[in-house]
């Protein structure tokens, strides 16, 4: 196995480990007051954020991986 394959395998294992760890994370509904705040919600910039991405993607050579709406707070 060359070093490139082993580094890809390492990244994959790290991702799997992180995904497995998510099952242990338990923020209870009563603890979600701050997570439900718009400031803690990804994509809360809404239309204004989307318009900004539209303008920037027309001025720069790259695009993608923008914020996806949602905060993992069960508030959507």
């Amino acid at each position, binding site marked *: 196995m060359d070093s490139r394959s082993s580094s890809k395998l390492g990244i994959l294992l790290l991702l799997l480990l992180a*995904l497995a760890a*998510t*099952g242990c*994370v*338990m*923020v*209870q*509904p009563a*603890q*979600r*007051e*701050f*997570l439900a*705040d*718009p*400031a*803690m*919600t*990804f994509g809360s*910039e*809404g*239309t*204004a954020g989307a*318009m*900004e991405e*539209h*303008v920037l993607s027309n*001025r*720069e*050579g*790259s*695009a*993608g*991986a*923008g*914020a*996806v709406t*949602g*905060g*993992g*707070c*069960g508030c*959507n």
Partner: protein
Amino acid sequence: MRTLLSTVSVLLVALVAAPALADTAEIDAYSTLFYEFGGPLEMLVVNPQVRVRVDPADEVQITAAYEADIVSGASVAVVDSPSADVDVISSATQLDDVRSVVTGGLTLNSPFGRLRGSYSYGFESDYTSHSFTIGARSEVFERNTTFDLSYARGFDSVCDLNQPRAQEAVERRRLDVSDGCFDGENDLRTAHDLALQTFQGSWTQAWAPIFVTQLTLTAQLVDGFQSNPYRAVWLGRSAAQEHHPDNRFRYAASLGARLWIEPLSGALSARVRVYRDNWDVRSITAEAAYEQSIDGAVRVRVRGRYYTQGAAAFFSDDYGIRPVGQYFTGDRELSDQESFMAGLSLVWTLTPGSEGANLGPLQAFRLVLKADYIHHEFPGFNYVRASVPNNNSIMGTLGIELIF
């Protein structure tokens, strides 16, 4: 014009009917102004948008939207032409165009997740697009984890000068005006296809009551005509329409984090994005922001953004002296660049009873104000010896949201 009028009419009807059709409805009206200044190649883009959302049932959301890009400014038609070092504006041409996009979408909610689909049709004098998007979202692990997947398929069409006798790219001339595009009767015009496929996945995770992260991955495949048909590049003895590869594979990954600062009742956020494509454009974007809530009704956000990009493999600042393979471009977006951005936004939400407000049928009224300043550096791009004159821009957004 007919299509535009029909679209506006339908939206006006929707605007009036939306609150009556559903228990919950939302109408958003936004406009963004982008102005690039600092030299003779000024560019102004106004982007108004109206969006209506109705929820005819708890499980169903229907959206309809219209947006336009109204562009006016000056653009260099022949990049690096010998006269450009004397006066960049001497070879610039006036650019005025309006792009309209209409969108319709449907979202279905269930206790297990959310499914969404939308269709957009974009049209302007020299470009049309049809875009379909489907997506799914699911919340798992006591709703601490959210996965979102989406796929978009675009079918675009680009107008160009019909040049059947030009066998080689270096023989192709640029399109000078859009007159006759897509009318089907003009032998001097033709249309090229451009197909787009975009896959995106995101994982949002609440790690603690005050900390949440989001990982987003995007892969995009673009296949077809990707040059600007109006732009030509000076190749040493003559100029030819710029010539980009037909295939582009684009990959981007971003990691964002938000942290609640309890003593301040505000949130810190940071985001890093890396990007690469098979044209060898590579970029890194870093952003940081702080958002403060004031009395629950006003939110103020300050932010900074840094962007750096490496040039495409086939980019050259002077193809007459340093040609790079079979492709040539006059697009500064494909050169080395850096940009710095600083911005401020303010969101004011008024609900019935707050500050003694009587909002009638409204559940909430929201006002959004946003302003950003951007400074660009193009160290490897020159119009012969003249550097890019317009390297500063401002962007302002005004938005109103009515929630019934």
